[in-house]
């Protein structure tokens, strides 16, 4: 099933490319308002039309991709950087008080719906892109901790780990030298999925006004701005909506494709 991988990769790289290009070039200045030219539908001069301030929506989508990717990337990074070591630790000390502490802490964070936690955190720290990153990052930690622990537990029973233990390697060294490389495939797949969830979460937070603050363009806020204008200028809602849908779809397909590619068990079963 390479189709998933190709389509997913294509969509994802399109978004990443748009974000990267936006650093050096956008068709219009993303902050430039041209109020007499507001609410124009897509045309040759404005490919995605203009918004209620007459800003070029194509440029905003490009820069908005940057915001989405930056927030999701750093948030997933936080989740991985903290979650993976926690998961490895819990697996290494299976059934100890440390394992209990980490996993019950995980359950605690898991018990709350992720977006509710994110709203709670931004409500305490104040709205803004950085706080959105922290908020989304925090609910990524248990995801990675749990998945790492689960995969690591089965590995600890394997002969090559036994051999390493007999050779006198410490638990920490075994975890990083032998366990981690063997769960990495799984983590990359999960990372892709979490990345798409991160983009959704960023859009959700921005939509309720807790994400990136104006004038930084963000897909979620573009949707919120469009809310009362849907009947006047449907493109204002359609375009950021489609951008979010396609990005999330692309990342999920990519994740699926990667799993098929990286997971030897699945590969055998399918062939």
């Amino acid at each position, binding site marked *: 099933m390479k189709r998933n991988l190709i389509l997913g990769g294509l969509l994802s790289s399109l978004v990443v490319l748009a974000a990267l290009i936006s650093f050096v070039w956008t068709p219009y200045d993303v*902050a*430039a*308002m041209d*109020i*007499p030219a*507001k609410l124009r539908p897509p045309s040759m001069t404005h490919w995605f039309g203009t918004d*209620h*301030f*007459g800003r070029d929506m194509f440029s905003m989508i490009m820069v908005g991709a940057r915001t989405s990717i930056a927030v999701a990337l750093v948030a997933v990074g936080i989740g991985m950087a903290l979650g993976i070591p926690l998961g490895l630790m819990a697996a290494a000390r299976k059934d100890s008080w440390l394992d209990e502490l980490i996993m019950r802490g995980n359950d605690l964070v898991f018990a709350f719906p992720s977006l509710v936690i994110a709203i709670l955190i931004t409500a305490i720290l104040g*709205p803004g892109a950085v706080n959105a990153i922290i908020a989304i990052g925090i609910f990524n930690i248990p995801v990675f901790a749990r998945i790492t622990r689960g995969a690591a537990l089965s590995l600890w029973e394997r002969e090559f780990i036994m051999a390493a233990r007999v050779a006198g390697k410490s638990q920490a060294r075994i975890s990083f030298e032998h366990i981690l490389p063997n769960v990495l495939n799984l983590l990359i797949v999960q990372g892709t999925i979490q990345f798409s969830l991160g983009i959704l979460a960023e859009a959700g937070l921005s939509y309720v*006004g807790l994400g990136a*603050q*104006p*004038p930084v363009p963000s897909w979620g806020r573009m949707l919120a701005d469009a*809310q*009362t*204008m849907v*009947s*006047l200028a449907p493109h204002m809602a359609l375009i950021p909506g489609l951008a979010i849908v396609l990005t999330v779809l692309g990342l999920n397909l990519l994740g699926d494709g990667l799993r098929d590619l990286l997971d030897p068990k699945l590969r055998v079963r399918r062939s």
Partner: protein
Amino acid sequence: MKIFRHPRSLTSAVALVAALGAAPALASDITVAMQLEPPHLDPTSAAAGAIDSVLYSNVFEGLTRFMGDGSVVPGLAESWDISEDGTTYTFHLHDGVKFHDGTTMDAEDVKFSLDRARAEDSANAQKALFAGITEVEVIDPLTVKVTLDAPNGSFLFNMAWGDAVIVAPESIEGIKQHPVGTGAFEFKEWVQGDKIVLDKNPDYWGTPAKLDEVTFKFISDPTAAFAAVMAEDVDVFTAFPAPENLPMFEADPRFQVLVGSTEGETILSTNNKRAPFDNKLVREAMAHAIDRQALIDGAMFGYGTPIGTHFAPHNPAYVDLTAQSAYDPELSKKLLAEAGLPDGFETTLHLPPPSYARRGGEIIAAQLAAVGIKAQIINVEWAQWLETVFKGKDFGLTIVSHTEPMDIGIYARPDYYFQYDNPAFQELIKTLNVTSDPAERTAMLQQAQKIIADDYVNGYLFQLPALTVAKVGVQGLWANAPTQATDLTAVSWAD
């Protein structure tokens, strides 16, 4: 409609006819929607305009009252005599006025209300209205004499405010939950978070209301507001929050759109005590950086009148000073350089929830950025705005609409949140307050407008329009909003 008060048989006969479809339903109730729900229901102890939006004139009345055109006419006082020196007002009250709980409204209630409002520990939000009163005397049950320490040209105007309505000592205890007034409607119920219902007062002393029941609905979300009107869930929406949708209502034969004026001067409020805003050149530079027309078109979709000072353009004393702060970014940059800030500066821009502020703020931030002033947008809720900006005075810039009528006097209060301190202006307002000659008052009001425009105290943006959407057939609504009120006493359905 009268027929409904006739014997039951007749009423049911009419109902039968209506049910058969021979006649359209005789609507005698109305649902009015607005964005903000009142925090409680005592207009005499809170600044929240939402309270007056529901209760003013409908449930509570004062000695005098505002009409829809802004004029002040007799209310509970049918007439008054003013002494030669202008310091005593003798009010003659209407006979036979009853509160909704059946108690009689008389001079004692007036004395109680005024004394309560001006007391040391009064919670009244507009204590300045009563500041000049030295004594309130009951002459007889229908006559009350108010003594002032100096003549006050706007005393009768002051008494028309929602904060000066007459309440009764018998019902003051529970007024916040169950308001008892003298108006044409009486309070029925309040479902918090949803609606307030008023019923017609059958024993009203004046012209009785034409509607039997009034429901106020609170819909804060602009999208939901649009949907509610479109689905005809509500009959009227006052202060409609999304001006971009009005052309659609105008084009729809089911609706009428009333565009009037309010007393809301929408301003870019500037912290005059904080550097660099304590420098007049900087404030002047900001004034020239703002393109009002772009702002009105972008944030209000064209609804709104540009202003050049803190005064309502529909007022006869208004002076058009917009040219003094005309859009001129080059001049703005020059002034900034002159002030020693050729590269501009950084500040904050606090924006409360209404779209005029949130959208207007984005536009203003972009316009200021064009001359080098980087204003960081901070979106806040009203409670936070009151705490940080209004009480805490911890802000650089903010956008807000000052909706009180004739409120230029706030510039004479150095501790008011934008902290403008000009002794000459304060002296002028003091003189104005004790002047009753209309011509002299107009001259002074015009001078006051010029002083604050010359000092560029705040950025003067536009007069907030009164935007009302109603179903076709609703008549008697106020198009303008001379005070925060939704006066339904004269509203009815056309046949």
